[in-house]
């Protein structure tokens, strides 16, 4: 598909329309991102765990005890957990709050549509890219050829070239075009080196909760706490009615045994797909790749060994690290932030988007020091030579594991997100090998 059959003026008209479409799409992507952040928060909260009497029958969502005669709870059809009256949405055909939120996000984000379409156009292009987006990308790049200085590329990700190769119109696209893309890429790279700043602001939502502002500030990098702060700002009521119920029940703030979450998510059809992927255009721009899928992790504190035990179960529904060849050799890298010397890596699994690792990592740390620490687990595609392609990450605040007897220890599927922040360690990924 290209616009070469149009007259110049016609093409301009069409590109104008596509530009308007892009504006709308950006608003939509931001809306979806927030929605999915809220959902992740809901899941996280639901899974946060405090001491719980062994064997006591409790609601899987709010952890209130269930009675023997009244309020005995009933099994949710979505996740098969026993749920109290208060944590149900709907009457006859009810679902628990989390299952309901999943379903709702899937509808409201348009994920249902992408899934349906993927059934029909299975192996064709990028699931998330609209035709308008594709055309616009191609033509905007082409129109700016003259502007970009022809500097040699410092490094380039194969993946990115691959994507553009798909877009190109073979006759219009020449080697110089590719060079152009390369330096375009390197410019973006430079720009994204100061991502700490950018990120903080990307996440900032104005207090009215209206349109978010993409301010690219010049302030120097945010400290960890600042980042946390701005993260919490993103939590706004984009699904106002949806989460109320669970919020109400949350202040007792007990929670599910995580093993329950595990069986829940494996049954849930929403989990078959990416969570944050459709919204990751910003990631798409920076990395030339879209994020999708989930990662299965179990985190536990081992008191006798004074260490945090992180088990990487596996991933599913990953994007291809090399979309041209439809290949992925994924591995998982872990950091206990902000400790940059805490890098741990799994083995690389070849040719799969559903890698299973079952690898356990130990990080020595006193329990009370977990306060303010976060686990960053990122998936990378180990490409040819030293090329590493980012496939998504999960950030987990570790505060919950400070409690003794924390029962939040089982496996849990976390949705993969676009890159939240640049760490020294992450940038080093490209050079350090």
């Amino acid at each position, binding site marked *: 598909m290209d616009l070469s*059959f149009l007259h110049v003026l*016609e093409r301009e008209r069409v590109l104008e329309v596509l530009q308007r479409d892009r504006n709308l799409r950006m608003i939509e992507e*931001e*809306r979806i991102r927030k929605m999915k952040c809220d959902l992740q928060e809901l899941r996280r909260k639901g899974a946060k765990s405090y001491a719980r009497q062994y064997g006591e029958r409790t609601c899987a969502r709010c952890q209130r005890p269930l009675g023997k005669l009244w309020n005995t709870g009933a099994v949710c059809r979505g996740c098969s957990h026993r749920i109290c009256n208060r944590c149900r949405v709907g009457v006859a055909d009810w679902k628990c709050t989390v299952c309901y939120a999943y379903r709702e996000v899937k*509808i409201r984000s348009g994920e249902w549509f992408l899934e*349906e379409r993927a059934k029909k156009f299975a192996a064709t292009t990028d699931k998330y890219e609209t035709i308008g987006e594709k055309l616009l990308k191609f033509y905007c790049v082409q129109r700016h050829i003259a502007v970009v200085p022809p500097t040699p590329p410092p490094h380039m990700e194969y993946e990115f070239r691959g994507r553009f190769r798909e877009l190109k119109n073979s006759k219009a696209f020449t080697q110089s075009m590719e060079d152009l893309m390369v330096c375009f890429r390197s410019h973006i790279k430079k720009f994204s080196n100061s991502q700490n700043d950018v990120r903080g602001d990307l996440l900032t939502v104005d207090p009215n909760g209206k*349109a978010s502002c993409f301010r690219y500030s010049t302030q120097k990098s945010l400290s960890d706490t600042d980042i946390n702060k701005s993260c919490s700002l993103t939590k706004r009521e984009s699904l106002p009615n949806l989460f109320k119920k669970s919020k109400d029940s949350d202040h007792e703030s007990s929670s599910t045994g995580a093993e329950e979450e595990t069986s829940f998510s494996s049954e849930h059809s929403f989990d*078959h797909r990416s969570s944050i992927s459709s919204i990751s255009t910003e990631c798409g721009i920076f990395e030339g790749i879209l994020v999708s899928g989930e990662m299965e992790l179990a985190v536990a504190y081992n008191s006798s060994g004074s260490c945090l035990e992180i088990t990487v179960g596996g991933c599913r529904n990953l994007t291809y690290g090399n979309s041209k060849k439809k290949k992925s050799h994924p591995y998982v890298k872990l950091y206990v932030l902000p400790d940059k010397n805490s890098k741990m890596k799994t083995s690389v699994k070849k040719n799969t988007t559903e890698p299973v690792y079952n690898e356990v*990592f130990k990080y020595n740390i006193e329990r009370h020091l977990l306060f303010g620490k976060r686990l960053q687990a990122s998936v990378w595609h180990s490409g040819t030579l030293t090329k590493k392609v980012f496939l998504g990450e999960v950030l987990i605040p570790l505060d919950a594991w400070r409690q003794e007897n924390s029962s939040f220890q*089982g496996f849990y599927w976390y949705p993969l997100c676009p890159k939240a922040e640049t760490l020294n360690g992450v940038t080093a990924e490209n050079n350090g090998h």
Partner: protein
Amino acid sequence: MTDGDYDYLIKLLALGDSGVGKTTFLYRYTDNKFNPKFITTVGIDFREKRVAYTASNPNGTATGKTFKVHLQLWDTAGQERFRSLTTAFFRDAMGFLLMFDLTSQQSFLNVRNWMSQLQANAYCENPDIVLVGNKADLADQREVQEKQAKELADKCGIPYFETSAATGAEVDKAVITLLDLVMKRMEQCVDKPPADPANGNGAAKLGEGQPNEKRCAC
């Protein structure tokens, strides 16, 4: 006009022969105005409208819940020379307004062709479509009888409306009917049981594999 304060973004698309009134129809729907001038649509265009949508039960009673829906209404050029461009946009739309001109038998005959274009290019084999016979106000020039069009619509299992972009008659109704179909479709899509049962339960994996301590040296 756009901010992110809505619950659903629904993308609909109008298609049909050139001159049947797609552009005029959409303009009537979004701005409630009529433009008698014929300005050829260049390839593609879209208009937007924010509407309140109240979900209804299968029996037709309102459930009381009202949502804000942001409609993106794609307009396409009917002319052959834009065909490759316009049909490419079919795949990004969730529902379709298939229009013909009640005063042009030819535009009605072409409905079948547009149907097959949709089948080939839309996101699924049987997308939600509403058949629209436009220019109902030009009664004396009518060439397509209601019965004829209704038969075709019934055969395809889609709703049919006779509208007038000039007077506004039935315009809203046609769009809202399509919106309703799409909204129902979304629910069906997420509620139907997944085709492949999820295999591999996370908890089951716990035992497998050999938990080996690893620390990267590099």
